[in-house]
């Protein structure tokens, strides 16, 4: 395991090759995420955004390459070392993935129960404060099935923040939400990034969200099997000479010509 020298790099992906059943979906993908930034992975459907995210959080083993979280290789780590890395990250899944048999408070309390020696009252207070941060303190005793999709996603963010990880990975936070709820979620992400200095790695293809929250983006494309653009999304929209990038940002339905 080689340490990552730059102290401001919190996630480093090196030469990642990923896919399913021998089919390569992402070929030799490399990039870094800096501390405190809102980093967005974008691209069309089926380009491997969620696959990349799942490799970054150690859920899937890559065919080749490495993912360093705070300088530690999550691909090679096992046992307690892997658990230590996982406490540095929080993940919100596309569906929220709240435990249906637990109340919101119990969902947020769960990581605290498993990782800390705090008193039950202290854990309850922390869980209530996390839910307060996402505007759901009044719903502590509700079951996930009693909440709307947007509320479930916010509760999932609260659960992901239970142990105050430095990095939050969000998979399609705006998918399936109305514009107002989506905008509220964007505002919440910006507020958390500013006040708690959390690094966000977000997978999305919602253009309004991308413009609203991202400091930097990488764009994946299934034809290229990897990254075709990196930088500020507004700059990419206005100046990119890659036809696939222009097609995405301008929402053009026709297949673009091959990039030179």
């Amino acid at each position: 395991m080689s340490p990552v020298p730059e102290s401001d790099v919190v996630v480093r992906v090196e030469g990642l090759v990923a896919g399913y059943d021998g089919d390569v979906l992402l070929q030799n993908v490399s990039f870094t995420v800096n501390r405190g930034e809102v980093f967005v992975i974008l691209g069309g459907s089926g380009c491997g955004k969620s696959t990349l995210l799942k490799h970054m959080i150690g859920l899937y083993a890559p065919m080749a390459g490495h993912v360093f979280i705070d300088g530690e290789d999550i691909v090679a780590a096992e046992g307690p070392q892997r658990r230590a890395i996982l406490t540095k990250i929080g993940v919100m899944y596309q569906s929220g993935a709240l435990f249906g048999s637990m109340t919101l408070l119990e969902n947020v309390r769960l990581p605290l129960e498993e990782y800390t020696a705090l008193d039950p009252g202290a854990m309850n207070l922390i869980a209530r404060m996390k839910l307060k941060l996402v505007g759901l303190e009044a719903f502590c005793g509700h079951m996930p099935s009693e909440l709307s999709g947007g509320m479930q996603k916010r509760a999932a963010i609260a659960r992901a923040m239970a142990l105050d990880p430095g990095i939050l990975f969000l998979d399609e936070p705006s998918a399936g939400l109305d514009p107002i709820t989506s905008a509220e979620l964007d505002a919440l992400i910006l507020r958390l990034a500013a006040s708690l200095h959390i690094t966000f790695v977000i997978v999305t293809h919602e253009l309004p969200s991308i413009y609203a929250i991202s400091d930097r983006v990488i764009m994946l494309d299934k034809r290229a099997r990897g990254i075709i653009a990196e930088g500020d999304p507004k700059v990419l929209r206005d100046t990119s000479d890659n036809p696939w990038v222009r097609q995405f940002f301008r929402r053009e339905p026709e297949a673009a010509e091959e990039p030179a």
Partner: protein
Amino acid sequence: MNAVATERAATPAALAVADAADGSRVLALSGRLDSYSIAGVWRAARAAVESAPDRRIVVDATAVDYCDGGGVAMLVDLLRQPRAGAAAITIRGLKPQFQTLLDQFDPRAFEAPPAPPAPPTSTVEDIGRITAQLFRDLRTQVAFIGETSSALWFAFTHPHRVRWKDVWYECEQVGANALPIVSLISFLLGVILAFESAVPMRQFGAEIFVADLVGLAIIRELGPLMTAILLAGRSGAAFAAEIGTMKVNEELNALTTMGLDPVRFLVVTRIIAALLMVPLLSLYANLVGILAGGLTMLSFNIPLVTYFHEVDSIVDMKDFLVGMVKTPVFATLIAGIGCLRGLQTQTGASAVGISATRAVVSGIVLLVAVDGIFAVIYYILDV
């Protein structure tokens, strides 16, 4: 605490309590205040605050190196303690970046505990609720029987409207795929029956009558019943889980809004498949069970020819029909209960599991009850 917490506690949180000359109590916090390392400090700080109800409390956070949500929660917890005006709690020296975090929370907003659980209901209320639920269930079941009967009659009178492709698929699931387990259980049933009866019968030199016992018991009773119980556990649960998952995924709503009747689409095909397969599997179970009895009797020096001759002499067509008549009823029960429980599935991750469990439990109970009713009817009819 685990290895993670131990590692995080490398710069541990610490607390020093001192009573100042002006009568105030100073709680000096230092180190890293995070969820992993503050458990002990938190308890000690609470104790120090509670043991000085009349003193002014000053929390000195000057030496705090790091403070995340856990540390902020501890400070909020101290600040929310009810105190008299002169004994207020103040925090000093907290670094600006941590103070920003603390400022997001109003400690008074966390004074009230979370909403209490629903108050316990009285026994009378419980009895009323359970009775109402039973009547609702009964109504659902009667409606389901009506809808299913109507759909089956429609299928009978309009066979070209039946989704035969689905029926054959279900036949494969219910019938062909169940052959290994039915074979195993029937074989073991025959072996056990033969052994258990042969040992006492041998004392009277009556081993040959084991063939009578095994033949009659399996053909009239155990072959069809054990097959039905196996299928209730296997296919009944599968039907409930499949239809339950479809309901959770709103596939049933999709069928309804397309103008398609879920009962005709999902229930009728499964009942037809069960009606075709349960009698065949029961017949197969009878054969395997009797063969197993014959093989067992070889160890008691009774040849297969003698054994089968004895079975043939005691078991007649009436016994065979007594057993087989039950199988369509069992088939309807297994498929009907499985589908009904699937259609009754509620929302949530555990709902499908609950439906599958209910399908198996109520399926087996009903099978045994109906078998008992058949036994009484046969006794009255003297067959």
